[in-house]
């Protein structure tokens, strides 16, 4: 009998989803209770996860199709915390748009379930199942504000393009299966050798599909539109949580089944990385909408995480995970600020709306200042350390070109972050924004800003947690 305790978090969260759905059907006006129960469910899942799996170094289940190791438990915890925070700060935004319904928490829970399955997958079919579960939930989330044209457009665009990439991914999987005769990652890893040219197509198709999911250039086209059109809280979810899952799968694919084919994929990853870093930095300069700008900046940041992956070393993987963790915190802080730009039930999301913010809202602007400098990677803020670890890993492998291009693109990227700071601090002020924000929103902004600001005092802790991850 398998040790089902290891998948207890997934089991618990699926049961919660079903229960919440039933509750929503039979009880009138149950939005509030659904929200609270789903938060509760996430908390319990996290506790179970920490209890059952955090000390496990590596175990496999169900004919080795599911793997529980330190990477999967860490990434699941980040996913759950991210999902929790998105849910708690969503309420007031959703209420403003009158879309405070039971479906929202249920969809978020289902996508989290999908991501957890993805993170733990050690088999092509399990992986694909998780991927589709999270994608389907995300399509609906993108269109969640269905009365708004942009939101529907975002959802449709996301659906069409994402379905296409899933198709490519599936085709790649079938090619890999054809060559290796198995869907299990470990078996594939043993079977594959680099002499087969058609196999390269399989790898490329899979990488393209994954690159689409993390919006790496040149498969990023959907991101700005979807980010702009989706409700802001959903955009926050998009920029944080699915990226973590997709990155984990990316790591898993590159370093388990394709480990022996490094020559075949390393150049591809380097290309994706450089293209994303440079394009993300350059394209963000001309943006006027903050959410679009965040989309391009997230493309750039994904470039840095990919730079860590391209190194084919444990340090590189660890640095990527550190990067994405710090990035998640920065993003949370940035979106908390964005959600505070509210005046009489209307949310503002143009960069110009930030004009002169520092006069009326000194604390909020100070937070933004810290966050933006951190995103730009200026020491001593957390964003600098994130980049520092990545480039340390990259230079260790003597990949000077990648490091120098990456660092130069941080200079370009610094320009558009500085431009926002300029607008906040140097420009003429506008009307005041409302200040009656929910406690959770203030909480998430304060905590994340303090984490960013004071990360330099205790940098070792995060490294310690991440250094347990040894994939290769």
């Amino acid at each position, binding site marked *: 009998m398998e040790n089902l305790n290891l998948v207890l978090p997934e089991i618990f969260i699926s049961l919660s989803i079903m229960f919440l759905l039933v509750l929503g059907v039979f009880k009138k006006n149950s939005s509030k209770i659904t929200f609270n129960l789903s938060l509760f469910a996430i908390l319990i899942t996290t506790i179970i996860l920490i209890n059952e799996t955090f000390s496990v170094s590596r175990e496999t289940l169900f004919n080795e199709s599911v793997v529980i190791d330190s990477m999967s438990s860490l990434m699941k915890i980040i996913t759950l915390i991210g999902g929790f925070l998105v849910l708690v700060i969503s309420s007031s935004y959703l209420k403003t748009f009158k879309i405070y319904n039971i479906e929202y928490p249920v969809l978020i829970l289902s996508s989290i379930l999908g991501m957890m399955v993805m993170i733990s997958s050690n088999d092509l079919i399990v992986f694909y199942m998780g991927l589709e579960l999270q994608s389907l939930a995300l399509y609906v989330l993108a269109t969640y504000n269905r009365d708004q044209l942009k939101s529907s457009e975002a959802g449709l665009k996301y659906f069409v393009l994402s379905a296409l990439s899933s198709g490519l991914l599936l085709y790649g999987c079938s090619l890999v299966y054809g060559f290796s005769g198995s869907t299990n990652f470990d078996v594939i890893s043993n079977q594959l050798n680099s002499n087969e040219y058609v196999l390269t197509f399989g790898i490329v198709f899979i990488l393209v599909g994954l690159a689409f999911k993390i919006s790496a250039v040149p498969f990023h086209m959907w991101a700005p539109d979807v980010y702009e059109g989706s409700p802001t809280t959903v955009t926050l979810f998009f920029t944080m949580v699915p990226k973590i899952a997709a990155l984990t799968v990316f790591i898993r694919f590159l370093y388990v089944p394709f480990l022996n084919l490094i020559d075949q994929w390393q150049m591809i990853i380097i290309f994706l990385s450089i293209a994303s870093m440079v394009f993300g930095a350059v394209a963000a300069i001309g943006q006027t909408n903050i959410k679009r700008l965040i989309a391009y900046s997230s493309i750039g940041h994904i470039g840095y995480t990919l730079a860590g992956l391209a190194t084919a070393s444990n340090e590189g993987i660890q640095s990527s995970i550190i990067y994405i963790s710090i990035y998640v915190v920065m993003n949370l802080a940035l979106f908390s600020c964005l959600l505070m730009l509210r005046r009489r039930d209307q949310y503002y999301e143009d960069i110009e709306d930030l004009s002169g913010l520092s006069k009326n809202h000194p604390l909020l602007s100070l937070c933004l200042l810290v966050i933006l400098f951190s995103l730009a990677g*200026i*020491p001593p803020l957390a964003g600098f350390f994130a980049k520092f670890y990545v480039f340390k890993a990259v*230079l260790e492998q003597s990949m000077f070109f990648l490091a120098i291009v990456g660092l130069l693109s941080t200079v370009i990227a*610094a320009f558009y972050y*500085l431009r926002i700071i300029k607008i906040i*601090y140097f420009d003429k002020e506008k009307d005041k924004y409302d200040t009656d924000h929910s406690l959770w929103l203030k909480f998430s902004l304060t905590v994340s800003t303090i984490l960013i600001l004071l990360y*330099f005092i205790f*940098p070792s802790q995060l490294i310690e947690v991440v250094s347990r991850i040894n994939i290769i």
Partner: protein
Amino acid sequence: MNFPILSSLILLPTVGALFLFFTKDKEGNNSTAKYVALFTTIVNFLISIYLWISFDQSTSNFQFVEDRTWIEGFINYKVGVDGISILFIILTTFITPLCIISVNNSVKNRLRDFLIAILIMESFMIGVFCALDLVVFYLFFEAGLIPMFLIIGIWGGPKRVYSAFKFFLYTLLGSVLMLVAIISIYWIAGTTDVIQLYELGIDAKYQNLLWLAFFSSFAVKTPMWPVHTWLPDAHVEAPTAGSVLLAAILLKMAGYGFIRFSLGLFPVASEVFTPLIYTLSVIAIIFTSFIALMQEDMKKLIAYSSVAHMGFVTLGIFTLQQQGIEGSIIQMISHGLVSAALFLCVGVVYDRMHSRMINSYGGIVTIIPKYSILFMLFTLAALGLPGTSGFIGEFLILMGAFKDNFLVAVIASLGVILGAAYMLWLYKRVVFGKLVNEDLKKMFDLNRSEYLILSCLAFPTLFFGFYPDPLINTIEVSVTDLINMHNTNIASK
């Protein structure tokens, strides 16, 4: 472990800034905030004086060293001072309170935020001068960009946005290459601890590239020709206190970096690239002196003169002679005092007339005589008149240069004449001559705080001009040792 005196020097201004952060920002009357900031910086100055007194001048070892694990098995938080860095720390703690006194007139709005920025800036600057780990150094070096960007951008003149961006992006672009070099050093030598690196040495085949990467950062910051263009813009737009900090201390970070890192870590490469430095320095001295001659704006003129003076500094450092390096250090200290004073002098008349143009002044000697006397003193110090600290620096640098390369020394000496030309001409046009503008008659002479600041700066300028021994004694052993280490390194390669 002894009392962590250096860490408290670094932290104290930040604590003061935090304290200010929780005081109320009142429009108009902000005396509390100012007194808090002033108190903090003066205490910091006293601590640094204590540091100087208890500093042992007979050894070149690093003193007051603190070594703490920071990132497990990778970076240690390591700070310490030797004869070279201690002077820069004292310069920093000396200039900052003067800046804070000077904000009275130049900063009208959000005084509290301005003081916070200055205090945080002070923390970072002291950090740069005591860091004994490359990563720690880089952290402080880069972090200083944030407060300076805000100082220029929020409180600056009409073209402040452009200048702030230029300042930030130029410096950042230079620095990222240094970051690549620092990480590479970690992989080559296995540590970023400066003391250990001095002992281990870095493989000669890597030195050239690493040297160039450090150079890219320091050259922008110095600034050397042709990457000096951010400096006049930043100076002109920054508020007086900002210009003072920029000229007096920020520029010295690069000179200090050249001595501590370029010479200390890459001796072979330093020899290789000496001609490059000589060429750029000489161009900077001659070319920017000519540009300074043509300036209409007083602040811009002084900014270009800073570039020329820093040209002397880089020239002196790479003569690799005892006199040259000592001269460079003294020139940096002296320039820190004199350029700060000159910017304050410009600030004084600007606060009264709201013009920095030279042609809007003239004949003010009879109206504001006290000001004219002090301004003259600093003008003469800037051109290196014997009896002022400027002379000692320039003289030692040229002496070092004559030992090393005759031609370069001759050309650089011409720069001294040009320096005299633009400074004296500036003084003549502003202070002497006919009264060009009836409004000038309404100007009042120095008020108490201005008088205090300028005399505080005048005293060491004259004192070290006549009696430079305290400075030379402090740096001598460290410089001798640096040169010895350099020569043994060269001999062994």
